[in-house]
Each structure stands twice: as C-alpha cells, then as structure tokens.
C-alpha cells in the first residue's frame, strides 16, 4: 500500500520505515515526543529530498509547532520550485475523540498547514483540504506515542 503510493508518485527516497507496525514496537521506547507532539521520523515520507510530507500536533490542538513551521517552509520552497504541482492537505486526529469532532479537528489542522503555506506564497488554488478525522491512523497502537503520530497533517501530491 505505502510502497505503491510512493512508486506512483515517482519518488523513491528515504523511506524511514515500510513495515509500520514493526517500527512502532521496536522504536517505542525511544521517546520521540516533545510534550505530546511527535518529533520522530518513523512514519514520515518525503516529497523531495529533505522535504518531509507531514507535521504533527498536540492533543486537541491545531497550532503549528516550530518544527512544523520549518517543515512547511521547506514544502513551500519545494512547491514554489515545482509550480505545476497541486497538493491535498490531509488532516487527521487520534482515536481519543468523538468521530464527528475529530472530522472537524482534522479539517482545522489541515487548514492551519494551508494558511501557513499560503503565507509563504503558495496559492490557495493549488491546495485542497481533506479531513479524515480518526479514520486513517498511520499507527494502529493504543498508546500516547501512536496517538502522537496520528495527530497530523500530511501533504500529498494531487497531480
């Protein structure tokens, strides 16, 4: 599934981990969180070399952290260089909330990323937003680290 997506997009760059579930267990104890925001790279894919595809959020929050803003600036620079690329920002929440609220929260998170990209010169015409709420976790664990990986906005190439 993951692999086919990467191949389809024509990118085959550093893939931190293909077998996600195996990863979750082996790296669980490394404490890749600051507060409850995920800071690791387990699930991160790359849009181009050095351009991570996702940013992470604190519980119930849609505020961009310093690290998230840095990631989004890299994405903006890459999008400026590749002006024909359009993107979907997929907003997600962890499983510790009601389904409907999480749909709204995912939308809010993806829009936080969108707003930031726009302030770095990316036209809103190139960005669409899609919330998955808690429907598409990347880590199936029921623990704080897994939840931190799932609270995310992922930038996906749309064309």
């Amino acid at each position, binding site marked *: 599934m993951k692999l086919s997506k990467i191949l389809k997009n024509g990118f085959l760059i550093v893939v931190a981990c293909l077998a996600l579930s195996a990863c979750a267990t082996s790296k669980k104890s490394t404490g890749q969180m600051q507060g409850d925001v995920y800071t690791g790279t387990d699930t991160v894919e790359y849009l181009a070399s050095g351009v991570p595809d996702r940013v992470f959020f604190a519980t119930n929050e849609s505020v961009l952290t310093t690290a998230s803003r840095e990631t989004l600036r890299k994405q903006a620079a890459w999008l400026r260089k590749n002006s024909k690329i359009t993107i979907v920002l997929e907003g997600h929440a962890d*499983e510790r*909330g*009601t389904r409907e609220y999480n749909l709204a929260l995912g939308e809010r998170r993806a829009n936080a990323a969108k707003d930031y990209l726009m302030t770095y010169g990316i036209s809103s015409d190139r960005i669409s937003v899609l919330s998955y709420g808690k*429907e598409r976790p990347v880590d199936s664990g029921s623990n704080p680290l897994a939840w931190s990986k799932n609270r995310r906005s992922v930038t996906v190439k749309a064309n």
Partner: protein
Amino acid sequence: MKKFLTILIFILIPVKSFGLIEVDITRGNLNPLPIAVSPLSIDEESRKNFQNILKKKNIGSEISLIVENNLKVSGLFNPLNKDAFLQEPDIANLKPRFEDWNLIKAQALITGKVTYVEEKLRVEFRLWDVLAGKEMMALAFTTVPNNWRRVGHIITDKVYERLTGEKGYFDTRIIYVAEEGPKTQRVKKLAIMDQDGANNKFLTLGNELVLTPRFNPTSQLVTYLSYFRNLPRVYLLDIETGTQEVVGDFPGMTFAPRFSPDGKKIIMSFAKDGNSEIYTMDLENRIVEKITNHPSIDTSPSYSPDGKFISFNSDRSGYQQIYVMKSDGSNVKRISFGKGIYGTPVWSPRGDLIAFTKLHKGKFYIGVMRTDGSGERLLTENFYQEAPSWSPNGRVLIFYRETKTDSKGKGFSAKLWSIDLTGYNERQVPTPTDGSDPSWSSLLSN
C-alpha cells in the same frame, strides 16, 4: 418495506384495565418477571403451508422464540424453560390451567395460534396474568408470511406495553456502519438489521468510506456521510429504492447529519477554512440556513423532539462541551460543566434527557443529563465508546465501543452495545462483522 403497511391489528376482546401485574422500568430490574412463552399452536395444514413458503418446520415455535429472546434481552423478563411447560399450546390458548403455570412460577403467560388464511399469516395471541387467573390482552394480526419475524417483534411490543405502561422498541431496526480490515485501512459499509440482529443487509459495497448513518424518524430515508470521490459530504439515501443524493451544494466537507423530528430538515456541520458551523437544509424547498456563527468547532447537532431546540457540542470554551440553543440559533447556553470533555449530545425521544459521550482522565463514558445540564448520570465506563442513539421509547441507548490494541497494535475491534437508561442490562448487540455508529429507527408499526 411497503409490506409493513399491510399488517392489520385488531383487538379481539377489549382490554380491561384491572390492577394486574406491572413491570417497573424506571429502576434497574434485578428480579425480572418470570414469564412463560408457550409456543404458538398451529394446525397441521397451516404448518405444512408455511413450511413450504418459509422453509421453517414450525413457524409457531419460531415466532415464540423471537418473543422469548426479545423479552430476555430487555432485561425485564425471565422467560421460563419450555421443557417445564405442562400444558399443550393449543389447549393453553383456549383456557390456561393456571395452577400448572403457577407451579413453574410463571407470573405471566403468552399463548397464541398461527393459521394460514388465503396465503396470509394470521396470528392471534393472548397475555394472561397467572396469579390473578385472568386474560390481560388478546390481539390478532394478518400479514404476508415473510413478515413472520416482525410478528414476533410486534407481539413483544404489545406485551411490553401492557406490562410496563410504555411503548416497546422491538419492531425497529438499527442502521450502522459495518467494519472490516486492519485499523489503518478499515473498510466501512452501511448496514441495516432488525434490532435483534436478524436480517442484516449491507447497503453500500465498501468502495468509499461511510460514516454516521441516521434514520429519518418518519420515513425510510437515511442520512449519512460518504467519502465518495474523496469528497466527504452528507448524503440522503432512500433505503426502499436505493437512490441517493448529495445534501446541498457546499464548497467543502459536510458532516454530522441528523434529521429534524418531523423528518423535513437535515441538520449538519459544514467545515470551511478550519471552522465548522451548524447548518440546516429543508428537504422540500432546499433552503439552507446557517444556525451557528462562531470561530470554534460547532458540531454533532441534535434536535429536541418538539423541534424547538438544538443541542450540539462546541469547543468555544477551549474544550468540547455541550450547548443548547433555540432552533434558530439564538440563546446559546452551555449545559455541561462537569470535569472532562463532553460530546455527541442526543436528545431523548421523551424530551427530558440528553445522552452524551464524556472523556475524563483517559476513560470514555456514556451518560445522560437533564436538558439544563443538571442531574448528570454516567451509565458506563470504558477505554473507548461513543455516539449513543436512543431506542424510540427512550429507555435504551445503543452505542459503539472500540477495544484498546496491544503493544503490537493488534486486537482492535469495534462492536455495538446497548444499555438501559437505568445503567443496567449492558449487552453486546450481535453483528456479523465489526460495527459502529448505530442509529435506532422509530417503531415500524404503531
């Protein structure tokens, strides 16, 4: 579905209201009423006819099993073992020998008869008070043979109503989301079944993600969220014809739909630019109205049964809390003030309570409070559970529960559960696959 209308009910003998047995459903019932459900008697010719049509050896016994199961699952009754019955079904239906039924400690007795009349199923049944030695009720219906399961549910509704003084909830259906596959890639389909889990049918194929189906209280329409073409939108589905359509023309995600009590409007959230507001759309004239106006997340709206108020959850105070407003959006008042986060308010069909989901210190609760927020009562605590939906008589809540996965991320499941308003009688509702987002229909017959 049209067949539902063809059920005819008439009273054989006027119901006399003596001070006979009563079941109190306002408290947790630790002593369910012992009741004997005698198999419905059937003459040999009718039995053969129904065996041909329905492939059931003895339809009288099958119907009585449905009644028995309903009564047992309600938690209010204790159906007695048929092996102990001394009297034959046909004779019991004419005149029970009350001493025999008393001997096995039955306080109430149901008897009846099934006959094949002009290609139809005719059922009569009687409810007897064993201690008083009196008939409490006698009814008969005629319907198409395929409706035999519903006959069992209708009998249960009548018995429940006679003994508790409140409408039943057995001749109803549940629409829900059937789930399969790994947690990271769940395949979800709309599914519908009778309240006892029978007649399960899938309404979508699982090609797109579907969420939160809800019944129209007055018709065979369902509203739900579908990710068709990766555009999450509220849809309307006619479960009789299978036709569906998008609700409204919104430039973004619409979600959290429910019908108004008269079935004429859909209330839902529309998310745009990071802000979710509540809207209604009139299904007749298609007029869209914006109800809330606040830069916070406003979602999970639910009307009061008189249509005058709307409850919803909002994080305008910083965290998700429950609010009530007039149906035009004015007079917004926060009603949840306990510790924790509150969501998914749903107004009881009786109008006096709001059921909700609460998250506090890492645990999820299903609870109820009065419509002004007072009298909060938590019914059940678990790792994860949410989205209560009321039985049409306001006595039972159905919701879904998800399990915690282990350290390898395995062991995930989602199941439907029900619990009485009393906090007793918690049960898993059987579904062929995993299930979530249940919504309870109105009574199909009245």
